[in-house]
């Protein structure tokens, strides 16, 4: 019986829900505690981002430990941007020792987007190498260099990400295959808005025979305002926001004068769109769950989970 709650749920063929939990730009553990309470009853596991978009925040490892203490099953996101292979492996060992059982291996956003664009990016390993490394530590008891671990191995449930919405589209499934071959057991995808393109991606993944080998958890994210929708459509590389979604968001606030009321109408529409997407994703063969990235809007998660009928 695996120690990871997420892994157990997936193996039990449950349509899982994970949510993202962003650590604060401070040393305040209460922020994490609040989020833990909010998410605790609604998700199978909670991801903690690792200095997302290269903005310095509380370490993902520490935040994971706090979540764990609140009874959540944390997914430790770890990027190759800020650590070389020595630090990466060291943090994996430390995480395991703290009771963390899931690790999501990422390359990481480039430092030029963050609050320290002057920083030196490490990128010693890439995400595929990192997956391989964790697997090697877990299964062979060896570090990347071949040097042996002397004692308990980190029995991590290994995750990776993939973006079906960035070119070259045909190559994306193949890249996912590489990650699976490297040892990824579950995949959390980029936020899905264009369901058609996502279906095509899943079909390709299926063609490569990967659907039996890996759990695919589709990323979703509720949109707060039409402006955010437009921004994501026009300015965020790797996101594919169809115009239809933008117009739905715009239409939702039309004619409402009161600012607050309008913002609420937008939120409702955003949640509605998110719920609809989840329902469609549920129907896709090979999708094992959803990963809700309600960035700094964690309170929306219970509502989304409820409305999409994943939990009552």
């Amino acid at each position, binding site marked *: 019986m695996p120690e990871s709650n997420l892994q157990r749920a997936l193996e039990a063929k449950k349509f899982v829900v994970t949510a993202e939990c962003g650590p604060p730009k401070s040393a305040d553990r209460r922020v994490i505690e609040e989020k833990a309470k909010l998410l605790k009853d609604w998700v199978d596991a909670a991801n903690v981002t690792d200095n997302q978009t290269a903005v310095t925040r509380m370490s993902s490892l520490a935040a994971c430990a706090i979540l764990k203490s609140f009874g959540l099953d944390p997914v430790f996101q770890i990027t190759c941007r800020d650590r070389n292979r020595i630090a990466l492996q060291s943090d994996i060992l430390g995480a395991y020792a703290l009771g963390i059982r899931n690790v999501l291996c990422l390359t990481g956003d480039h430092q030029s987007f963050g609050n320290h664009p002057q920083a030196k990016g490490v990128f*010693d390993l890439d995400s595929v*190498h990192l997956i391989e490394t964790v697997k090697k530590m877990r299964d062979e008891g060896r570090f990347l260099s071949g040097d042996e671990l002397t004692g308990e191995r980190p029995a991590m449930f290994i995750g990776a990400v993939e*973006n079906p919405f960035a*070119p*070259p589209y045909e190559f994306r499934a193949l*890249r996912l295959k590489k990650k699976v*071959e490297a040892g990824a057991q579950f995949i959390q995808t980029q936020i899905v808005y264009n369901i058609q393109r996502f279906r095509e991606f899943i079909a390709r993944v299926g063609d490569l025979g990967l659907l039996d080998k890996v759990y695919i958890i589709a990323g979703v994210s509720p949109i707060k305002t039409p402006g955010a929708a437009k921004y994501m459509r026009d300015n965020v590389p790797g996101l594919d926001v169809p115009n239809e979604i933008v117009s739905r968001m715009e239409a939702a606030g039309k004619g409402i004068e009161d600012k607050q009321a309008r913002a609420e109408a937008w939120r409702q529409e955003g949640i509605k769109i998110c719920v609809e997407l989840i329902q469609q994703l549920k129907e896709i063969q090979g999708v094992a769950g959803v990963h809700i990235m309600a960035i700094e809007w964690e309170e929306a998660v219970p509502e989304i989970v409820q409305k999409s009928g994943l939990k009552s």
Partner: protein
Amino acid sequence: MIVADQKPIEEILQMLEPYKKVLFLGCQTCVAVCMAGGEKEVGLLAAAVRLARKQQGRPIEIIEGAVKRQCDDEFNEPWAKTIEQQEAVLSLACGVGVNKLSERFDVPILPALNTKFFGEVERQGVWAEVCAGCGNCILHLTGGICPIARCAKNLLNGPCGGVRADGTCEVAHNGPRPCAWVMIYERLGKLNQRQNIENIFAAKDWSSDRHGGPRKRVREDMLLET
């Protein structure tokens, strides 16, 4: 070739602040080709500095010159006497030239350029980094397009999620550039060699890069000492 950029004139003026008698020494190889430190730039920069200093009421005496390659002592040697009479030398060579002159002369050698990368000429006036000098080439596998130099994250196993819909990289503060991995993917398609990237590239051994410490190359058979 080595691509360099002239430092902002303000920084150069500041560097030269303490000196009144300086040699501006250009290099007629890489930095001439990339229009940063050849004889023409020496002339322009010297004229600019003299002008600025005159405006400040603190004239400066500048000797202008350029050598074939500052990274070889022999080319610099004819300038030895002149250099020794200077308060400082402003080198318009790449960093190699500055180091070389500094090893040889007891005069302060100041860099006029920021040495940037090994580059190709995309077209006149545009230079692009295409090789990182990592010491461990895999170009035969990647269709001749280097993921180490041309991917912002030096990824070895395909593109990250930050590729724009037009195939350019999201990291664009040096101007838009195509995603190296999109290029590799397309080029290998043309060469019918996509199988090259189906399997995982192992983690790179960076010890051949400058992460292994300052590098040196020795070719024993060419050594003149017995």
